[in-house]
Each structure stands twice: as structure tokens, then as C-alpha cells.
């Protein structure tokens, strides 16, 4: 893809330092107001409800409302097995979300297909859409989901989300084209 994806915290800090004050402030706002769109297809949905409920309470991190319209949300949670038949629907939901947007693959089926290695199950939703954070587990514990949430928030703050990197790359290409 031509875009480097750094993984260590030190590199994160370096990127964080490169951002302008406006970007820092914008990303700070974004990371505490993630609106989730739960694309719930299977049993992991129970675990998502537990995370969203009062005991684990994902609202502590600003991801308060599950929005049931992709146009109002910026975090797509793919919760459960995705079949090949659902692929076009998933892609359409992702395309309808407003930029910038992030994706969490919730559970092992959404990440890799899990134990469904057959004619109907898609081997991971990253075959169709770019995924920012993968959560293993069948189903994952709510603590894992919250951990992934924190990881995603760091990623949003440092501007390393897939759509953030793409937007930045596109703006660089556009400005280079303007300069000639």
C-alpha cells in the first residue's frame, strides 16, 4: 500500500509529535466520541451487549451510543461470522459511513473466519474492508473489548487509523498535484 504502519509506542509518539496542534485537538475529540455501528451477525453479539451494558460500560470511553445508521457512526464493529453472501452488505455499510472511520473485528470469526473454514464463511472481514483492531476470542471477554477500545483510541489519537492514513495520503497527493 506504500503506507508504513508503525506498531511501537515510541514510533507512535514520534508521529504524535509530527501532528499539528489542530490535528491533535481534532483527534483528541474523535477518540472520545466514537459512535459505534454494531454489525452483529452471530453469538458474539451477546458479548457486545455485555460490553455496552452497565457492568462493563463502554460509555466510560465515550463510545456511548450504538447508532443503527452507518451515516451517523464512525466505528464499525463487525461482531460475529461474516458469510460470503453478506460481503456486499458489509462493504455497503462501510462505504456509507462518514470519513474518518474505523473498524474493529470483534471475535475470532470476524477476524479470521474462526472454525468456519468452508464454502459459505468469509475468512475474516478484512477480505472486504480494512480492519484497524482485531479482537481474538470465541467470544472475547468484555475486558478484551475494552482493551481493544483503548488501543483504537491510541491509534485515533496518533492518526494511524486506515481511513486517517488514506485521507492524509490523498491530501498529500492532491497538494503535490496542485504544486505541479
Amino acid at each position: 500500500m506504500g503506507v508504513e504502519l508503525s506498531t511501537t509506542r515510541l514510533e507512535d509518539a514520534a508521529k504524535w509529535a509530527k501532528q499539528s496542534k489542530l490535528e491533535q485537538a481534532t483527534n483528541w475529540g474523535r477518540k472520545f466520541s466514537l459512535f459505534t455501528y454494531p454489525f452483529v451477525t452471530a453469538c458474539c453479539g451477546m458479548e457486545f451487549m455485555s460490553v455496552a451494558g452497565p457492568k462493563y460500560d463502554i460509555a466510560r470511553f465515550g463510545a456511548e451510543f450504538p447508532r443503527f445508521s452507518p451515516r451517523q457512526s464512525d466505528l464499525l464493529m463487525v461482531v460475529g461470522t461474516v458469510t460470503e453472501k453478506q460481503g456486499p452488505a458489509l462493504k455497503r455499510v462501510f462505504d456509507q459511513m462518514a470519513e474518518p472511520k474505523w473498524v474493529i473485528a470483534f471475535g475470532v470469526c470476524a477476524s479470521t473466519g474462526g472454525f468456519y473454514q468452508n464454502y459459505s464463511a468469509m475468512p475474516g472481514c478484512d477480505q472486504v474492508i480494512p480492519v484497524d483492531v482485531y479482537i481474538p476470542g470465541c467470544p472475547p471477554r468484555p475486558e478484551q473489548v475494552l482493551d481493544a477500545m483503548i488501543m483504537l483510541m491510541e491509534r485515533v489519537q496518533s492518526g494511524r487509523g486506515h481511513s486517517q492514513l488514506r485521507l492524509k495520503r490523498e491530501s498529500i497527493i492532491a497538494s503535490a498535484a496542485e504544486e505541479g
Partner: protein
Amino acid sequence: MSQKVLDALKAVHGAAVERTASAHGDEIAWIKRDNLLAVATWLRDDAAMAFDAPVFCTCIDWLDWHPVGRPPSEGWSEDKPRFTICYQLRSQTHKHRIRLEVELPEHDARCPSLAELWGAFNWQERETFDMYGIRFEGHPDLRRIYMYEEFVGYPLRKDYPKEKRQPLVRRDDLPINPMKAEHK
């Protein structure tokens, strides 16, 4: 348990029954394909039979195994049955049940539809068509029910490759993209 059903069936439709079996409380009658509709209609409408509850309809793919009741010495031939269609029926009034089985060869995998007799077989026959490619003749709406229209082949047949996928959509930037010709 329901031996009297088998006896009555053989008495009335003796020519249509290839053979019968009875195991673990289940009575099975192998029916010739051309007579299936007549036998099923009689089972539903006769007062002493009154099979009013369809339980399931499915298919068995034997591939090159030897179906029950056929000697191993028979060997493989084109007309040897590969598929067995099972119709499990139950009577709520008389509390008895029976399974009708029809054997089909691979090159001629069609079977009369019982969807007009019992409406519950409508979707089950569509499922059997979707997964095994059995053509149910006389079915009101024989389409795929689980898989998408673009799907080629019948996934539960024993010769369908185990992990063969037929994706509808993929990202453009995948290193190995099954949608692209050079990766197929």
C-alpha cells in the same frame, strides 16, 4: 412400531415398493421414483394412514459407497444410485410414522416434489436443491434458498472441494485476491 403401516403400504401399493426395512422403531420404505407422488397422496388422504405432519426432507450423497441393501459385488455403474431422498412423515392422529426413500442416479437427479401435498416441504426441497442439486419436478418455486444466485455447484455434495469459496466481493489491495484471475 409402525409395521402395520408398512404392511398396508405393501398391500395397496405393492408394485411401487422396492423394499422395506425396520430398525430402532423407524419404518423405512424405498419407493420407485415414478410412484412416489401416488404413494404420498395415498398416505396423506387415506383415513387409516392420515399422515398430516411432514417432519423433514433431506438427501444423502453416497458418492461411490454402497447404499444399504446393495451387495458390494455390484460394482460401480452409471445407473447405480448416488443420492437417496428421504421424506420423514408422521401422523398426529394415529401416532405412527414412516420414512419414504427414493434412490436417484447421478446423471438423472430428479425427484417428484411433495411440496403441493405438504406445504412444509416447500422450503425443505429448496434447501435440498440448493445443497445437493436435486431437481424437484412440480415444485412451485425451485430456487436456491441459502446460497446466492451466483454460486456455482452444490456445496454439500461429497465431491465439492472442502474449502472452495466463491466470493462476491473482495478488497482491491489484497496480496492474494480470489476474485482476480491470476490467483484463482
